[in-house]
């Protein structure tokens, strides 16, 4: 994975986290939902360029499946619209986060499984091996991000209040 790709993945991960953390600052729920799905598509594109053509459909299909499981009487409409209609708009961020978490884990797991099925004699530089390396790096980043979320280190402020003239 190049430094640029790594930086892009960090950006996408950070942006996803920011949107799920404070979705109301990014616009109406319907907009946030679309943005999050686009970020997931971009992330999938960086991780696995070869599969990019089908990524959008895969993620949308996965999202529809997820809604069927998570929303009673689900319809083929955006999650935000359905929750609004059911008077559950406050649950939007939590439900969307569950999908993102599941998507990250499932998508990564599938690709790792595919990589494991490859002949052991693959040479370095093989696209599958490179993809596996990307995924391992990503998982490491994901674990670190979870640790940060669980126990964020508070930055110590350089405070000037006490030294004002």
């Amino acid at each position, binding site marked *: 994975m190049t430094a640029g790709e790594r930086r892009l993945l960090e950006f996408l991960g950070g942006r996803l986290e*920011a949107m799920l953390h404070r979705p109301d600052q990014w616009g109406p729920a319907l907009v946030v939902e679309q943005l999050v799905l686009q970020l997931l598509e971009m992330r999938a594109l960086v991780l696995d360029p070869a599969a990019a053509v089908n990524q959008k459909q895969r993620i949308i299909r996965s999202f529809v499946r997820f809604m069927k499981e998570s929303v009673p009487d689900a319809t083929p409409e955006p999650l935000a619209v359905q929750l609004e209609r059911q008077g559950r708009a406050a649950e939007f961020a939590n439900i969307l986060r569950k999908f993102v978490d599941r998507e990250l884990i499932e998508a990564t797991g599938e690709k790792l499984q595919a990589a494991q099925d490859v002949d052991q004699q693959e040479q370095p530089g093989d696209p599958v091996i490179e993809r596996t390396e990307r995924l391992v790096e990503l998982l490491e980043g994901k674990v670190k991000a979870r640790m940060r979320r669980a126990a964020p280190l508070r*930055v*110590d402020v*350089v405070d*000037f*209040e006490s*030294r004002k*003239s």
Partner: protein
Amino acid sequence: MSKTRGQSQVEFLRDVAADGGRIAKAEFSLNRDMWKDVSPTYYLTLDQKGVRSHQEFPWTPELEKYLLQAGVTAASPEEEAERFATILMNNLTRAEQDHGKDYARSVLVDILRGRPEYGLDRLLARIPAYRPSQSGRSFAACTQFLTTSIDGLQNEGQTGLRYSPDQARDLTRAALEILLDETFVISSSDALFPRS
């Protein structure tokens, strides 16, 4: 409970001072790199009873507070500006933790748009930040915190580090330029995607 890196740094420098030693020279670098996060570092020359040693200290808030309190200035205006920028970056990170990354950044831009004395128009024009929502307590708290950080730093430049008012303002302006450049990846974007 184990000591933090900053506590150990300060303890070491206090011991040096208690033994009659002093900081003979303080060099500083943000170690900016297009592909990596900055790694702000102090390179201190210590004079201990006539024996000089050169030591490297990764920047920490505790170390910075100690050096400010001791009135230690950096070796050059450029290094001082990078040091000031590091302090502002640190405090911006705290604001991001407290109020959300994008919100804190939009508040920062909002504050600086109201400070023409710093002459940051060219950089501010490059930043696609929305006006922050002003309802709720976050806006007031975040604005006050960041304003105090900027004004307090400039004030500290005069009172603690004994720069003239003009020098302190110029250093703060240079630091804000670095802060905006690093935070909004302006130079790196220009290098990667040159504008015709």
